[in-house]
């Protein structure tokens, strides 16, 4: 482990930014937090839970995957050396789930290229970022178990750095870091973890809902929630483990064009509609059921790693769903039974 005076963080980040495209939490006017290129003016350590997870760094909202020009095509693949600073533990877990899914049986070259060229620095949470955090339930935080090159613990005046890889270690070499003896580091981490876990309440409804879904599908719950869902797809877009995309072609000129992929969501009817017009998931109730069962029941064991399920407890769907049917509310409804 390494230690760094908080004083020196800006210098270190500036230094890293000379060697990497440094992406970090920024506060943009009038106050929105987004992961963006490092700028000492907008960089902030007081960023809570950014509305969009850093999955946007690996699967952007839309990206050109190849271009066609005069009958030949060229793959657009990223080889930019990047460093993401400030990933939350839940997101680090979500990113790993997504990466396994995207490369497990068929390698998504666009995703993998970004993954391979990106260093990841996690900043551990000392407590919940807001009331919808439930990483202690999904076993995905508040401290990352793996999936990082460096992990930062904010101890007031000092930052402790856990080394996750040799590339991570190299980031500390020749800079203002100093060594930390193993026992001091281990004790400090254990105390940090204990304090953090104590203040992030476990949400029993999540486990209860997972158990309930093992035995039956509460159709009345899906029907009720399906009638409320406005099909905006926002829950999928903010979700760190959602990776579905759609492909479309765009003409640029008479003899050139590009193939683009862009975020998609299983909440949309067209996601499963077949060429004949038949839709195996014809109602919003069934589409919501599919989404939540994927997170809580039918996830792939190889994808989830050490986590409890396919949801990493970041709570963003509950933060942003305009009609209050995030994972927490769905679990509560399953446990309480549907409605009147």
């Amino acid at each position, binding site marked *: 482990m390494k230690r760094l005076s908080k004083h020196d963080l800006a210098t270190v980040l500036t230094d890293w930014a000379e060697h990497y495209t440094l992406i970090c939490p920024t506060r943009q*006017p*009038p106050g929105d937090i987004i992961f963006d290129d490092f700028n000492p003016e907008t960089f902030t350590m007081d960023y809570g839970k950014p509305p969009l997870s850093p999955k946007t760094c690996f699967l952007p909202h839309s990206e050109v995957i190849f271009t066609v020009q005069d009958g030949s095509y060229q793959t657009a693949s990223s080889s930019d050396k990047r460093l993401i600073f400030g990933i939350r533990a839940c997101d680090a877990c979500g990113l790993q789930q997504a990466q396994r899914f995207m490369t497990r049986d068929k390698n998504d070259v666009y995703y993998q290229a970004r993954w391979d060229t990106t260093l990841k620095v996690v900043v551990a949470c000392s407590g919940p970022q807001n009331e919808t955090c439930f990483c202690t339930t999904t076993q995905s935080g508040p401290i990352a178990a793996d999936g990082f090159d460096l992990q930062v613990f904010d101890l007031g005046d000092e930052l402790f750095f856990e080394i996750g890889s040799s590339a991570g270690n190299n980031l500390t070499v020749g800079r203002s870091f100093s060594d930390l003896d193993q026992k001091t580091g281990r004790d400090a981490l254990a105390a940090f973890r204990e304090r953090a876990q104590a203040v992030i309440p476990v949400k029993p409804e999540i486990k209860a809902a997972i158990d309930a879904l093992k035995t039956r599908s509460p159709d009345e719950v899906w029907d*009720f929630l399906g*009638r*409320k869902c*406005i*099909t*905006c797809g926002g829950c999928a877009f903010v979700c760190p483990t959602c990776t579905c995309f*759609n492909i*479309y072609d765009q003409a640029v000129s008479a003899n050139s064009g590009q193939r*683009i992929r*862009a975020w*998609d969501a299983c909440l*949309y*009817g*067209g996601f499963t509609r077949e060429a004949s*017009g038949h839709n195996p998931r014809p109602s919003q109730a069934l589409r919501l059921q599919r989404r939540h069962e994927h997170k809580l029941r039918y996830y792939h064991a190889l994808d989830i790693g050490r986590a409890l399920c396919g949801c990493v407890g970041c709570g963003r769907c509950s933060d942003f769903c*305009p*009609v209050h049917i995030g994972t927490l509310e769905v679990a509560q409804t399953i446990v309480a039974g549907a*409605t*009147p």
Partner: protein
Amino acid sequence: MTNSIVEFEDADLVLVTGSNTTAQHPLIGTRIINAHARGTKLIVVDPRIIPLAEHADLHLRHNIGTDVAVFNGLMNVIIADGLHDRNFIMTRTEGFEALHDIVSRYTPNVVQAITGVPAGDIVAAARMYAQADKAMIAYAMGITQHTTGTDNVKVLADLAMLTGHLGRPSTGINPLRGQNNVQGACDMGALPNVYCGYQSVAAAEIRAKFETAWGRPLNDKPGLTITDMMSAALRGDLKAMFIMGENPMMSDPDTTHIERALANLDFLVVQDIFVTETARLADVVLPGAAFSEKTGTYTNTERRVQLAHAATAPPQDARADWEIICALSMHAGYPMVYDSPRDIMREINTLTPSYAGITYERLEACHGLQWPCPTPEHPGTPILHRDKFTKGLGTFLPCDFKPLAEVPDEEFDFILTTGRISYQYHTGTMTRRTNLLEREAPHAQVQIHPEDARRLSIGNCDLVEISSRRGTVRMQAEITDQVPRKVLFTTFHFHEAPVNKLTNPACDPISKIPEYKGCAVMIRRIS
């Protein structure tokens, strides 16, 4: 809206009419569903089985265009049963006798004969609405887009005043505006007869105020409405038009007539973010900035003024609308000198009493302010007409039922009604360029009742031809009992099936809104 969106949650009863709320105002629709789940009664008055109707305690499926008769029927029952609010009528209103005279003719049986709604349902709806402590009315274009649109709104206002469901939390008459800033555009005087804040161009003292502020003499005559402009262009009385962010070649009724009118102009300028069907006819196209490329305010359906910041710069030569207008004005010899939307808002504050206290400084620190907000200290007004109406006493404006301007006959035997779906927006200028939305709703479909489809040998997804006296379009059939028999429903989003070639340009005499919600058509399968 007289009241605010959040108040739907606390209403004892919500009456929704002419609004497919969950599709077009989904956040309001969900508040209504949430309230209903907690015990709020829900009455839906709509010919179609809209999704909200599945939650409704009572669904009145009246014949298209018979709204006045339905609500006169409700008022008839309310007065007959003595359920009207005598105190409210006495202290807050005038003209009750005239109302009573007219609605007394609309007994439940008479109304059933006109509207097709069972008399018992008229009685039940009347009692539920009148007996609720706090009842809200929500309506949208299903009420206004009729030749009787103004009458339809008047009878809803009469109904609310008759029962005292006004001026208190979770009551009122709540039009759900059809676009995110149509309220703001009207507030800013994008109407032919008023300056900002609905100050009449014909009033001398108001005109003098604007003449002083702008240093120019101003015309005292109201201008033309859109529908009047098109007729004037066709006659040759109107020589040039400047169309901003509007696509009348798709959105105005009887578009064959619109195309002739625009072709007859000497000069047409269109300002938009894409080359629309209308822009293709223009002599000059000015590229505007999209919503995410400009800073400014939007005023939503509950009169809430909200600030939005530009996220990116406009592409190439595109500019924010205000910058284009200022530049044009400069060339025309009247320098409009503003350095930012904030600067323009300062002028709005000085000239618009209802916006006087709505400053950028305040908007930056809150989630918007609801007008009227007359001073910098004023908290805004969530509920209108609390102690008195703007004009003093509220006047009952009774109306008699008038049929659709074009009723079905033997040849054109269906009523076509038009509207929108969730995935596409208006004429598709923006949404049809959005891949995912286009996948969700790639082409026009016309809804037809299963019995009609069977009789005409129309199968699901068959190609059909729909004709009115004004034109013909082709699209796919969707067989569903969500529409009544002898009624067709479709949308105006798709240029491949421009349904406004069919619609009737007959207008409401006061608002000049066309009757998009009902015209006579025929339909046949294309083999």
